[in-house]
């Protein structure tokens, strides 16, 4: 039996559902519910049986073919993933307006946009427009230390 990506993923899912099954058995239920016909453990246990069954079948029945994943842009996606993560970290501290503009500008630049005009016009008006829509039309308040500091919002 060759290990290909389908089998490997099925094996990971099999392990996942085995761990899930164990965790389901560890769910603490009320003493009076312990021997009930249906308690908080029952449904997760059924799901784990289903998961173990189908991932085991996938593992066994997957063909012995060598699978190629092709040439994908892993690095670019990982960088974008890190950018989204960083955006999540700075959004609270520097506020929505500044962090979103920074996120967009860095992403545009990283993906190959070099014209400052395009970068600025595709970020600041979009973010300002959305923030205006949220604040003025939909009454959604977003805390923004930067805009508060320069006196745009109270």
């Amino acid at each position, binding site marked *: 039996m060759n290990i290909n990506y389908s089998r490997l993923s099925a094996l990971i899912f099999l392990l996942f559902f085995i761990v899930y099954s164990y965790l389901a058995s560890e769910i603490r239920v009320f003493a009076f519910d312990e021997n009930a016909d249906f308690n908080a453990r029952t*449904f997760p246990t059924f799901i784990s049986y*289903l998961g173990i069954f189908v991932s085991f079948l*996938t593992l066994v029945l997957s063909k012995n073919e060598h699978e190629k994943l092709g040439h994908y842009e892993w690095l670019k996606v990982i960088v974008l993933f890190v950018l*989204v993560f960083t*955006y999540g970290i700075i959004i609270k501290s520097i506020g929505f307006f500044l962090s979103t503009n920074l996120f*967009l500008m860095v992403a*545009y630049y990283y993906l190959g946009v070099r014209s400052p005009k395009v970068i600025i016009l*595709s970020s600041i008006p979009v973010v300002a427009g959305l923030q205006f829509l949220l604040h003025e039309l939909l009454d959604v308040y977003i805390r923004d230390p930067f805009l508060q500091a320069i006196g745009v919002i109270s």
Partner: protein
Amino acid sequence: MNEGILIGINTAFSGYNILMVMAGCFAGTIIGMLPGLGPMSAIALMIPITYGFDPASAMILMAGVYYGAIFGGSTSSILINAPGVAGTVSSSFDGYPMSQNGQAGKALAIAAYASFSGGTIAAIFLLIAAPQLAKVSLSFQSADYFALMCVGLLSIAAFASKGQFLKAMIMTALGLALATVGQDALSDITRFAFGNINLMDGISFVLLVMATFAMSEAFMIIFKKMDISFKASDVSKANLGSIKLSKAEVKEMAPVIGRSSVLGFLVGVLPGAGATIASFLAWGFERSIASAKDKLKFGKGSIKGLTAPETANNAACTGSFVPLLTLGIPGSGTTAVMLGALLSFGVQPGPRLYIEQPELFWAVIVSMYIGNVVLLFLNLPLIPYIARILAIPKNILVPLVLFFSVTGVYLISFNAFDIYFMAIVAFLSLVLRVLNYPMPPLILGFILGGMLEKNLRRAILINDGSFSFMWERPISLALFVVMIIIVLLQIYQGIQKNKAK
């Protein structure tokens, strides 16, 4: 019922809701046109915007987005042979050759008239079928609902799997498992939260949909180096040609529209099937009944070949609302997202919806007519201008989609944890998609998980801990037989495929 319809008409024809339909159709057309972004992503992106709306307006907006996205997908299929939506792939078979023959305008007009007719005829069917089905489903008990949901989960795994049924079932199980995170609805016991306060309320449905669709689609565009941008001149007005149809062409279209509307609606009603299967079936059906001379035209710019899938996919969209509105069970991935949105508004779709909230039930149905009119009279003349969206380069589009996805989730909770969690889920779903694991079964499993547990619990408790309800209740028994047939069909197809190889 008549009173309900009048309330629905009143609600749908309010200035605000007409604006919602127009905005939805317009936004849906733009998003659906972009290759890679389908109706699920379009609706997912709309959910955060609709949070301040009343449920009827929100549903009307989302229904408009759904129609618009299918229409937008047809436009990119016809103009550039790059379907934005799976349901419009078969439209490119004849639409794109027409476009290459200098008849792009005519092809778009055929698509618009066919979509309008299919959507309108199916909306009439919905008007008749929905209350009848709702009445029948009042006799459903927990056991029947449990069986029906199982049929829905199995059939979406069968239809959405593209031959990978087991992988689709793994995704269903994963979706169900994710639904168990957080507090148990009955006992309030926290499950699988690992002491993390952010997980105690469960995983947000909007987060999961945004991450698995909108965000991972954006990642996928970069990941697969998809070239999705086109020159503005390719879609300019001068290149489109006339949008007028001759009498003979309309005559040729009419019977196809009639047949494909019925077929599309019926396929749409089936759980899991939806617009993609309806459009392929309609194209194949028209080809099989065409005369030998007409058959040769299929795939080379046949009017019938374009009319059939365009009619059927819109009719199927309408049909998929039948199980959603009457049984509270979504028939497709897109309506599953809508169900999630409705639940987050505190609305429980089901047989009592049209009695308890007629304004919502009927307004959505009536707004479908308005949506079809909007698509025909507003979007068709604007196509040369809207199609310029295809000229947006991917390095601008991708960060914008990421931004709207992240903002959409952040604005609901104002919790940075959701952004991290979303990024991780989006990355994992990208990997799973590369390995051919379909995402719609995961979403349907996640959305139905809570309801499935509730109904199973009730059915087991009513039956004193026994599973006898599976064969004692005729409705449940019939549904379980359907499930067995679906599984056997999958096994048979698998064996046939292996033999063919």
